[in-house]
């Protein structure tokens, strides 16, 4: 595994998210073979790679929708999901309530939106603040309205997901994540279920979030977005980081053959 030197980190600054040697197998297939990276607050990391390379699994391990088999994840120095404790450093998983408390520091935006179909857009966004953070219904709805306005959906707050276009639904999902005031947001191919003409409205919202200083990890096949918005780019294949660096560098001068082949394939589509 070779890598271009990562973006230099100012001395003394601790990363928001530190991932070390993350491993995951399904059955006896090793899907993640030791993934490590740091992410500074306010930065956008974009993960690219061929289908099946493990990008989704990385995101799902970060907020423990999937339990990793090995390695550590630290958010502001706090180990996620449990800790190595006692002699022999045995792994102790956190109780569910603590896990849930950690999980809400990660927003998650799903490929297929996963909005709650029985709730309106406003309720979809307000339910977390109300039922998880314990805000009153009025406060929660006020907060939800702010976030929906932020993603330009102020006029659609009372609609159910089924009454919204894909692009609108995905923006509701982003607002739902934002309303929990997460430390960072994980995006798993947020535009790949959308009709092509709706892709830009979601990417624009994400670019705006990045500009405002939100920390994000984005899995995407939108290479122009990666080029424009990423502070750091990671190319994965077969459960490993093959190459990483500034997007400009990776795109214009990929060092690894696997990267070259992948980029040639996706950029010439």
């Amino acid at each position: 595994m070779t890598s271009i030197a990562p973006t230099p980190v100012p001395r003394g600054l601790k990363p928001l998210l530190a991932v070390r040697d993350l491993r995951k197998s399904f059955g006896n297939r090793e899907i993640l073979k030791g993934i490590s990276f740091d992410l500074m607050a306010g930065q956008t990391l974009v993960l690219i790679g061929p289908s099946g390379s493990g990008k989704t699994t990385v995101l799902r391990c970060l907020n423990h929708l999937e339990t990793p088999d090995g390695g550590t994840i630290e958010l502001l120095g706090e180990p996620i999901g449990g800790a190595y404790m006692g002699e022999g450093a045995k792994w102790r998983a956190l109780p569910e309530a603590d896990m849930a408390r950690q999980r809400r520091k990660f927003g998650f935006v799903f490929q297929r939106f996963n909005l709650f179909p029985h709730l309106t857009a406003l309720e979809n966004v307000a339910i977390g603040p109300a039922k998880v953070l314990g805000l009153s219904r009025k406060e929660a709805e006020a907060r939800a309205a702010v976030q929906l306005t932020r993603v330009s959906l102020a006029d659609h707050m009372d609609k159910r997901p089924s009454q919204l276009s894909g692009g609108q639904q995905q923006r509701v999902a982003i607002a739902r994540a934002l309303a929990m005031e997460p430390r960072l947001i994980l995006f798993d191919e947020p535009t790949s279920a959308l009709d092509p003409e709706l892709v830009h409205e979601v990417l624009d919202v994400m670019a705006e979030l990045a500009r405002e200083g939100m920390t994000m990890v984005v899995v995407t096949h939108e290479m122009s977005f990666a080029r424009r918005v990423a502070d750091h780019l990671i190319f994965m294949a077969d459960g490993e980081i093959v190459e990483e660096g500034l997007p400009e560098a990776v795109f214009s001068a990929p060092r690894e053959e696997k990267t070259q082949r992948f980029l040639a394939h996706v950029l010439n589509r």
Partner: protein
Amino acid sequence: MSIDWSVVQMAIPLLAEGTVMTLKIAAIAGILGLAGGVALGLISLGGLAPARWMVRAYVDFIRGTPLLIQIFIVFFGLPAMGLRLGEFWAGVIALSLNCAGYVAEVVRGTVGAVEKGQTEAAKSIGMTHGKILVYVLLPQSIRPMMPALTNDVITLLKNTSLLSVISVYELTRSGQAIIASHFAPVEIFTLLAIYYYAIISVLSWISRVIERRLPAW
């Protein structure tokens, strides 16, 4: 074959008394069975492992043994435990226990069939298991549960006829009494079938009305 219309004429009002009893049994056992079944279903969805295991065993027992045997076990078992409640309550309890087992399966199955992404989205905003169940999964399950629950209630209503074996004076039993004194089994059993069919048709209609009124999205 000739139909004895005078027996039929005499039986129609007599059977009404049995019908009231049948409806009473079905209503009480239905409410207890639905409530118990939802509780059991929730335990099997979100309870601690030993509790889930016990519900599993209970449902297996209910589904794996004849209702008639269950009725006898309750009917003879309650007095053996010092509870003398009479045949009416023994019958109601047996039917409730039976109904609860099937309802538990419906609840578990329907809630379990809600798309996995719903649970994951709820987790991602920090919800714990209980909240996910209450705010995300159950509200989406009520409507899809209706047809199966209606079936369970209809089955319960038909099963009330089995209580005739422990001398509960419900519809079937009241028909048997007429047969014993007037010997017109074909007329009376046909009449019983018509009574049950009418009751069940009304039930199905009510269920469809309720289902239509439930919110959809």
